[in-house]
């Protein structure tokens, strides 16, 4: 697993190709509803359930990857 995987999740949920590892989800037009879909995809693919607060803290693929990696045993 790597940040690129989360880039792909962002692309799918936001329906845009303009995503890189440091893109801010909300600046790309994301909102809280779409954020829940990112969190469910991360839970499915990484086996890690993050909180919404984790998401808001650093809403980029890099930020979320760091959070997810920190939780993985």
């Amino acid at each position, binding site marked *: 697993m790597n940040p690129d995987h989360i880039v792909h999740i962002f692309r799918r949920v936001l329906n845009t190709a303009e995503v890189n590892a440091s893109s801010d989800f909300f600046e790309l037009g994301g909102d*809280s509803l779409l954020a829940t*879909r990112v969190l469910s995809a991360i839970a499915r693919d990484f086996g890690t359930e993050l909180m919404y607060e984790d998401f808001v803290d650093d809403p980029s693929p890099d930020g979320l990857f760091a959070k997810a990696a920190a939780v993985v045993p």
Partner: protein
Amino acid sequence: MNGEGMRVVVVGAGLAGLTAAVDLAAAGAEVTVLEARDRVGGRMHGIPLSRSVVADGGAAYLGVRHTELLTMIGEHGLGLASTAMVGDSTFLVSDRRTTTASRVPPLDVVALGDLFDRLEELVAQVRPDAPWESPRAEYLDQLTAAQWLADEVEHPDARTFFPLFIGEMMAADPAAISVLHMAFYLCSGGGIRYLNAFEGGAQQWRIDGGAHLLCEALADRLGERVRLGHPVSAIDQDADEVVVHCVSSVAGRHSEYRADQVVVAIPPLLAQRIEFRPALPAPRATAATGRGCAVKVHLSYPAPIWREQGLSGWSVSAHGPLLSTVDDSPPDESVGVLTGFVTGAAASVFSALSSDEQRDAALAHAGQLFPQLPPPTQCSVTDWPAEIYSRGCYAALFGPGDWLRLGPTLTEPHGRVHWAGTETSLEFFGLMEGAIRSGQRVATELIHGAELATVSRKVVAQ
């Protein structure tokens, strides 16, 4: 113009009927609009809260994709009021009150994301131009949204949230609508995210002063062509003309209007109650077709005081009556207005209460949500399912079997009888934008013939 001298009766002075009437009159038709109520506007209705403030009892919100509505608002010199909210959201879930900076309820976010993913899959399957021809349409049309949830979604938090979401989006009890209708409605309104969002979504603005002002402005242009207090009971037609029968609600007086063409621009449940001679080859509504289950409660305060407490006024509760509240205060903050939405199954329960009981229940709920607020100075209730000349709001709910039965003939004329109304618009079905597009489509159909109406609709869609 081919409309020159054509006699047209429009049944219903809601947004769809008024739009059609204005377009037809502009093309030279002799138009008469018959309206059952003693006011125009239908499901757009102003509720006076003070000498200068009027709340939207019915349809209220719009967004940037509602292009025809925005154009019409501009043409009539009306303004927009932003719904932008500042402050924390309030939640009353599992009998606990919480406030947070986001709009995410205190439920398992991963479970909510899974639910939205599943809904997104359904929406992606719908054929927006012909939902009855979607893949697996027969199956999805028979299955209720409640059955779908029971079969497909396990997490208790997703099961808690689903009826709240469908209530807010569609004013529906999931047990009363088909999965096809749910997926179609979400698709037609621009997708789940667009339909759900305030900023950047379908709730970006209100019409400043009230949505009813738009209907009143259209009616002003039509002048004496609009006849109030004229409920239509029957429509007869033969090779030469069509005769529309009214039974006046006041004196029981019978009147007749003769025309070349008729536009029926009322909700399907009401259209189905008109007697057509010869009879309709296909129904407008069935026993499964339901009333949109929305009751709006307006709570007035001396000012939007919740803002001083860092709250947006927006809330979601897991239990009724006020499943959701929205800050609808006027831009000048001369009063504070919280709109409570009682939707879906909760609306049926609430509707059955006496007006004192409704008031007590609404005030008790507001007290739980916002314990720091004083009691509201005024509480007004607009009960749409009980309105005999609307039978529900936001829109008719297509139940199991309805889309396959009703969908293919939604806009198909019955001889001299043509159809309009937001429920005949596959684009923005159930919304003001859908009503306008249906009115424009039917006017084009009468002036230029059905083929051109389809073409121009596609142009609008692009």
